[in-house]
C-alpha cells in the first residue's frame, strides 16, 4: 500500500487584522513561503503582505468577454442571414447596430462567468475538506479571529516557528497535520 503523504501547518491566531498583516510581512521577510491568511472579512493589505503575484482573474475575464462578443456576433449573423432570414422594414439582413445590445449583454455575461468560475478555479474551490478544519480553535477564523498558516515539514520540530509567531504577537499557536486532498 502506498504511504499517505501528510502535510503540516503551524496555525497562529492574532487578535487584530493589523497584527496579522504585520506578522505576515515579517514572517515573509524571514524567508517563510507558502503562507496563507484567514480572516472573517476581506483583509486590507493582506495579499501585499503575502507577496502574492498579480491576479490572473482580469485576464480570464477579458478572454470571457471577448468569447461572449464573438459568440453573440456569430450567433446573430447565422440566425438572421442564414437560418431564418426576415425582411424587417427593408433593413439589410446583416444589420450590425441591431445586434449590439445582445453582443454587449453576452460579452458582460461571459466576462462575469470568467470572473466567477476563474476565481473558483484559481482558489481551488469548492474544497469541502482541509486539515486545518481539524483544529477546533481555528473556527474563530469565521467570526473574530485572524489566522496565519505557515507550512511545516511533517515530523520536524515546530517549536522554533511557534516561538517566532508568539514573539510576533500570536495569541495562540497550534500544529495541524493531515492529508491535503
Amino acid at each position, binding site marked *: 500500500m502506498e504511504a499517505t503523504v501528510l502535510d503540516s501547518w503551524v496555525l497562529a491566531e492574532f487578535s487584530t487584522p493589523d497584527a496579522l498583516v504585520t506578522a505576515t510581512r515579517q514572517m515573509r521577510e524571514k524567508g517563510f513561503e507558502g503562507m496563507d491568511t484567514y480572516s472573517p472579512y*476581506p483583509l*486590507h*493589505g493582506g495579499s501585499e503582505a503575502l507577496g502574492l503575484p*498579480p491576479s490572473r482573474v*482580469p485576464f480570464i475575464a*477579458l478572454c470571457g468577454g471577448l468569447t461572449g462578443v464573438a459568440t453573440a456576433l456569430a450567433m446573430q449573423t447565422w440566425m438572421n442571414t442564414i437560418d431564418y432570414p426576415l425582411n424587417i*422594414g427593408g433593413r439589410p439582413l446583416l444589420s450590425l*447596430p*441591431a445586434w*449590439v*445590445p445582445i453582443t454587449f449583454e453576452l460579452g458582460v455575461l461571459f466576462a462575469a462567468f470568467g470572473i466567477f468560475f476563474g476565481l473558483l478555479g484559481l482558489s481551488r474551490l469548492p474544497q469541502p475538506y482541509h486539515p486545518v478544519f481539524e483544529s477546533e480553535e481555528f473556527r474563530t477564523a469565521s467570526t473574530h479571529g485572524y489566522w496565519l498558516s505557515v507550512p511545516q515539514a511533517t515530523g520536524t520540530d515546530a517549536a522554533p516557528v511557534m516561538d517566532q509567531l508568539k514573539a510576533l504577537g500570536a495569541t495562540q499557536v497550534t500544529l495541524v497535520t493531515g492529508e491535503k486532498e
Partner: protein
Amino acid sequence: MSPPVTNSHTSFGPYTGTPKLMVPAFAVGILCLLATLGGFFATDAKGETAHAYLIGFTYWVGISVAFLIMQAIFHTAKAKWLIVLRRTMETASAVIPVFFVLALPLLAMAAYLYPWWEGSELTKGYSSLELEHLSHKQHGYLNNHFSFPPGVGLRHIIYFGVWSFAAWRLRSWSLKQDTEGGLDFTVKQRKFSPGVLPFLALTITFASFDWLMSLTPLWQSTIFGVYYFAGSFLAAFCILTIVTVNAQGKDLYGSVVKLDHFHNLGKLMLAFTAFWAYIAFSQFMLVWIANIPEEAPWYGLRMFGPWRSMSIALFFLHFLLPFGILLSRKLKLQPRKLAVVAVYLLIIHAVDLYWLVWPALTGDAGPTFHWSLLTAFFGVGGIAVGFALFLARGHYTLTVKDPYIAESLRYVQP
C-alpha cells in the same frame, strides 16, 4: 492671507499664483477671442465663425458645469477619498459666471445658428409643413424671449443663476472651512448637494437642448442632454488628472496625492468613456431602429455621405481605443501616462462637439475646417483657464481643514 499649515511631511501655504501661467492664458484667450469676434463681424464667414464659437463655448462651459455636478455627487455620496482633489473642482466650477459673459456674442450670432430665431434665413430650405411646425408648435419654447438671448432670455438666466449660486455656495463654505475648520461646513455641503443635484441635471439638459439640439429644431432627442453631459463629465475627469499631475511644487497639492487617487481617476475615466459610448449608442439605436421621418435625417446626414467616415472614426477613437488603453491597470498607476491619455480624450471631446455642431452648417458638403475653430476654442478656453488660475490665487490648493482630509491623504483603495 492665512498662515501656512504644517504636518510632519509637508508645509503648505496659500497658492501665491505665478503669473507664468495665468498671463499667457489670458493673453491667448483675449487675442483668440478678438480674432474670432473680428472674423464674425468683419468677414463674410459669419456661419463658420458663429458655429465655431458655439463649439468653443459649449466645450468649456460643459466642463465647468461637469465639475460642479461632480462635487455635488461626491458630497451626496459622502466620499472621502477625493477630498485632496476637491479644491480644484471648486475652482473650476467657480468660473461659471464668466461663461455668462462669454455667451453674449451668441446673441449676435443666433441668427446664423438657429433656424427658429426671428429673422434667421436658415429656414430657406424648409417645406411649408416644417415651417408651420416651427412657427406654431415649437414657437412657445424656441423663441427670442424665453430661450436664448443671454442676459435677456429667461431660461438662460435660470441656468446660469442655478450654476453660479451652487458653485459659489459650495466654494465659499469650503474656503471658510480653511480658516475656521470644524464639521459645520462639511455638514452644510452634504445637505446642500443632494438638494441641488436635480436642478443641475435639469439645467444642463435644457441648456444642451437650447444651445446644441435646437441647431436642427425639428429633430428632438430626450437623451441629448445626457450625451452632452457624458462627454463633458469625461473631459472634466481628464482635466482633473492633468492638473493634479502637474500641480507639483511649492504650495501645490500634487505631491501629497497618492497613486491610489490616480488609479481612481483612471478608473473613472474608463467608466465614463464607456458611459459616453453607452449613451451615444442608445440615442443612435433608437433613432435608427424606429427610422421615422422626423428623426432619421439627423443621423442620415451623419451616416451617409461625407460625414460617414467621421462618425465611424468617433466610435473607434472616442470609445474603442481609449477604452482598450484604459483597461490596463499598469497604465492607470502611471500618472504621467494617464495624463497623456487625458489630453487625447480632451481633443477627441472637441471633435465630438464638432461632429454635433458642424453638420448643421455644412450639411452634405461634409467636414470642413475654418481657422475660427481653433481661435474660438483657445479664446474661450484661455479666458476660462486664466480666470480659474486667478481664482486659485491666495487660497490653499487643497482643503486643509476638512475634517476628513487626513483620511483622504492616506487613502488606500479597497
